[in-house]
């Protein structure tokens, strides 16, 4: 433990803790919406788009964010709208987007032999965040929370029942668009913590844990955020103590918590 406290004197650890907690809380808040709308795996699908963006950016020699943010927003829109329009269930649309993006990414990579930082995108590392990543994470997380608070009542309504929302004269397409943008933002920054392989975990696991508690929707959101914060901190401490990748540790802490909750409240 004293080793951990000593680590707190390093700026990169402090940065990781601040950015990581913010990202985790945002992911968990948006995660509640995605789980309830049956888009649990959208994070996974978008992270493959993130991988494709990385390949395209490396190939064209462009900054990664410039490619990934617009591509992810487009894909999130695409997934939400295609599955809504054709009532095919989100899973098909997600499978199409993710396998398509992964295939495209692999192909582009094969033309281009600079795949060096692919590994860090697959596994992520919050401790290895650059100054730029840190600033971006802070700005995007605060935007996500701000947008979520401003549109909270609407997002609640749309998540609950879109047809009813339309009967109140509300433009559900616009708010589905907002949810897509928030989802894309969270995947862009969340990939830094867990990498593309585990991103779905930090989005949906806290929400799934929180669903086991009683009470209203707001309480569910808050519990999900609190669980995300606590499991992030616990995961980071474990990964520092045992020198393991942070993303994997955070996900495992969440899964263990879920099992404990299921045992206590069957």
């Amino acid at each position, binding site marked *: 433990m004293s080793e951990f406290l000593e680590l707190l004197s390093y700026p990169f650890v402090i940065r990781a803790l601040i950015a990581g907690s913010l990202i985790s809380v945002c992911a968990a808040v948006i995660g509640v919406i995605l789980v*309830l709308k049956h888009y649990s795996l959208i994070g996974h699908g978008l992270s493959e788009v993130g991988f494709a963006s990385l390949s395209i950016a490396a190939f064209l020699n462009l900054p990664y964010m410039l490619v990934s943010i617009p591509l992810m927003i487009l894909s999130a829109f695409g997934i939400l709208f295609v599955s809504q329009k054709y009532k095919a269930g989100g899973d098909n649309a997600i499978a199409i987007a993710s396998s398509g993006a992964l295939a495209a990414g692999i192909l582009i990579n094969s033309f281009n032999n600079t795949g060096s930082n692919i590994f860090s995108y697959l596994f992520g590392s919050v401790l290895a965040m650059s100054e730029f990543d840190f600033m971006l994470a802070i700005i995007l997380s605060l935007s996500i929370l701000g947008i979520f608070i*401003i*549109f909270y*009542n*609407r997002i*609640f*309504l749309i*998540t*609950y*029942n879109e*047809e*009813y*929302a*339309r*009967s*109140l*004269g*509300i*433009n559900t397409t616009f708010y589905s668009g907002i949810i897509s943008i928030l989802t894309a933002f969270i995947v862009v920054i969340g990939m830094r913590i867990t990498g593309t392989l585990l991103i779905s975990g930090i989005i949906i696991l806290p929400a799934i844990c929180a*669903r086991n508690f*009683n*009470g*209203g*929707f*707001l309480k*569910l959101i808050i519990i999900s955020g609190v669980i995300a914060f606590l499991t992030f901190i616990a995961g980071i401490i474990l990964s520092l103590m045992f020198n393991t990748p942070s993303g994997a540790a955070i996900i495992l802490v969440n899964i263990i918590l879920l099992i404990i909750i299921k045992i206590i409240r069957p």
Partner: protein
Amino acid sequence: MNNFLSLKNITVIYSDFKALDNISFSMNAGELVFVIGANGSGKSTFIKVIAGLRNIKSGEIIRPSKISYVPQIETADRDFPANVFEIVMTGLQRRNKLFYSHDDKNKAMKIISALGLNDFIKRRLNTLSGGQFRRVLLARALCGEPELLLLDEPCAGLDTKSHRDFYDILAEINSKGTAIIIVTHDRGDFDDIKYNRIVEISNGRIFEHERIS
């Protein structure tokens, strides 16, 4: 032709199936109309057209600006993790209004008490009985202060007592001037409330059944 609610030659098509076939219907402010008909005849579609939830293939509609719609229970997600107060409050949402005011909260509380739901405001939807849940949906609809209230089979599955209580509430709402359209399968409902007309929908067409002046 009156201009409170009037549907003229409305046709609604799902893929290639005519769910409503050239129907016309009108009603005056403050009236109460029952809609009956077999399963799949087009009753819910009719109600949804009035609520503005279905695109029409052809025809014209004049409708009041404040309409509240209470969906058929099968489509009102009861497993959603929200409490009664949160759901009732949604009835106050409007385009161009993102936040609830203090007055909104008072208004919702008043309606909640009037419908005897005070003890349930913190309860999650899936812990309510069928009768309590119907009252939640009605409370939510009343928050919109509608001129026209659309109810799609509001009493299906209720026992005699809850049924009568529910109709007593509707009678009071109607007596204050709100027009109501009630879809029902139960002809016994006609004895529970004073109504103006009964119309029947059959295979997407509408028939005037009974008129009481």
